[in-house]
């Protein structure tokens, strides 16, 4: 059932209270409310059309981060699957994932707000590396909170962050993964908000983060749409698919295609499927689908991919799911490893484990006819696989 009836679903600004439908909001301690109000005002001013901020943001993404990223038409993979696969190559950005788009924007905003320090949470370490990179670029102090489980499985990224001058604080509370890293970053922020910006890594958290991060990521979707049209003689793809942890690469992707006929598909980790197995609740400042027990205690997510190990999902995805504009599927660890190898062998591209989830779903959907033979599919390859090499090596052994 679609609550919005027949009205087309748009990915515009949320309501004044930060809602996408009934999801989102600002469920935060009083101590952090003024900071979120300040951030909202700063971002709104910065994001005005033709602002100096936008010009700087775009210039940095071009000259520093390497945008636009290509759209790769995958001939051999397409032959294998019987559907035409186009990959949006976020793996080719500086630091190796879409996370750079967000941190360049939030880093610039930190300067505008006159703050000198960033705190960030990270799962796979990609957002931590991106935050450390932006901090170095803009001359900011940077502390990254990372669950102890993740510091172990993403050791290389921990080292990269340190090389970039950031301090990495392992989090030993709770499930010791992404959820707990967010808790610790919020606890830091409550105590440091005067000098510190919380550089949240996905389309989650309190208003304005879900909106702001989606806007900072929409560049990838806007580019992909134009690139698809150029390649497809003005047509749009039939299916657009992206993996979903908090949901930032998917939100940026969907923003570019929400007003086309394309079917939008988000792919969560089977062990962290907030839309599939969650119920609406409040965590980390937002109302959204959440894995929780009968009394509202948050359940731990489980995935081979540290970046998708999160029991919630960005509120706009909950809205898109309820409105029926996007569907959310899952992929399990084993098919993800198989998909990763398939892409490596057919196209010479080693994806990160996170986008390998999107690919795993596509492989299954193409084989069982969920995606019809001959369809055109645009898939966001959100990051490269270097960070996961050791873990994949161990898993395949």
């Amino acid at each position: 059932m679609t609550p919005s009836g027949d009205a087309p679903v748009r990915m515009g600004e949320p309501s004044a209270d930060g809602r996408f439908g009934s999801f989102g909001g600002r469920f935060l301690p009083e101590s952090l409310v003024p900071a979120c109000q300040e951030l909202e005002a700063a971002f709104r001013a910065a994001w005005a059309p033709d602002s100096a901020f936008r010009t700087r943001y775009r210039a940095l993404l071009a000259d520093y981060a390497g945008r636009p990223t290509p759209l790769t038409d995958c001939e051999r993979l397409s032959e294998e699957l019987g559907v035409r696969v186009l990959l949006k190559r976020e793996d080719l950005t500086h630091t190796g994932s879409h996370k750079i788009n967000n941190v360049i924007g939030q880093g610039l905003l930190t300067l505008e707000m006159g703050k000198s320090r960033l705190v960030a949470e990270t799962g796979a370490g990609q957002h931590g590396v991106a935050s450390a990179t932006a901090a170095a670029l803009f001359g900011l102090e940077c502390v990254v909170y990372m669950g102890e489980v993740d510091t172990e499985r993403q050791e290389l990224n921990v080292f990269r962050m340190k090389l970039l001058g950031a301090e990495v604080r392992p989090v030993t509370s709770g499930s010791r993964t992404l959820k707990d890293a967010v808790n610790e970053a919020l606890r830091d922020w409550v105590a440091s908000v005067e000098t510190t910006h919380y550089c949240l890594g996905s389309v989650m958290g309190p208003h304005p983060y879900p909106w702001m991060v989606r806007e900072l990521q929409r560049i990838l979707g806007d580019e992909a749409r134009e690139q698809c049209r150029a390649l497809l003689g003005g047509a749009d793809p039939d299916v657009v698919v992206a993996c979903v942890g908090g949901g930032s690469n998917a939100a940026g992707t969907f923003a570019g295609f929400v007003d086309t006929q394309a079917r939008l598909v988000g792919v969560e980790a089977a062990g962290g499927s907030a839309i599939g197995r969650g119920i609406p609740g409040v965590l980390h400042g937002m109302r959204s689908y959440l894995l929780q027990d009968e009394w509202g205690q948050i359940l731990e997510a489980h995935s081979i991919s540290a970046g998708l190990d999160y029991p919630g999902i960005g509120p706009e995805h909950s809205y898109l799911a309820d409105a029926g504009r996007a569907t959310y599927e899952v992929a399990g660890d084993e098919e993800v490893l198989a998909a990763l190898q398939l892409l490596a062998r057919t196209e010479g591209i080693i994806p990160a484990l996170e986008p390998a989830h999107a690919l795993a779903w596509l492989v299954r959907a193409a084989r069982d006819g969920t995606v019809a033979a001959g369809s055109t599919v645009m898939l966001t390859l959100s990051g490269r696989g270097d960070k996961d090499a050791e873990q994949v090596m161990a898993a395949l052994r």
Partner: protein
Amino acid sequence: MSGPEASSPPDGRQGWQASEPLARGVAVEPALRAARSSGRKLLVPYVTGGLGARWVEVLQAVVDAGADAVEVGLPFSDPVMDGPTIQEASLRALEGGATPPSILDALAAVEVPVPVVAMTYYNLVLRAGHRRFAKMLVDGGVRGAIVPDLPLEELGDWSPAADAGGVETVLLAAPVTPDDRLAELCARSHGFVYGVNLMGVTGERTSLAASAQVLAKRLKSATDKPVVMGFGISTPEQAVAAASHADGVVVASALMRLVLDGASPAQVGDAVGAFRAALDRG
């Protein structure tokens, strides 16, 4: 929409009215105003519900030692406003199987002569359902609620259910709360106004933050409701200093640290007694 919502626990009796007799518990604000009028500083100790087999005895001991009201934590898996001590207390209580009903049933079985105020996070309220949660509290003799992740802008669903159910919702004011917001917050807070001493999470501190007295003064000039200061009050001396410009104090982590370290209910009661004596000496 059907689906996920439908698997939530039912929302209790519909149409529950405040005019029904409130069977249990002591109303918060009248009791605190009366205590304040008697000339004493208010002491509000905190106890994590379900922490250890003897937590109800701890509660009774802190009340007997001179509490004017008592806060009972309904533990949440992800307490972002809490430092290491209350995180650990919450986690241990949850590992011991504590749930809102197990804690509230235990409270319903004892007579507490002072107001009991629940401290929890919003997801527990939302999961149970607003009306049902309010009724669960009152059935357990709990007549106040502190929900730190529910700021003014998000009170819309909870406040009407709490008001109708007879639960006084205590709001928190922070050192960074601007004056206009402070006034609205005082107007909409019930039971008392909770002044957060410092920018940070709960937990023991070696000294009282300078922001504490500034906020206490601002709150006292903004409202006639009882003003109780909390966060980081670890010693009787700090309690006296924090209460000097306010009506009283909350003491939480310092007590739960004792429980976590194995103190008996009597020993926790003695600690509360020391806070009481210091506040009475002034």
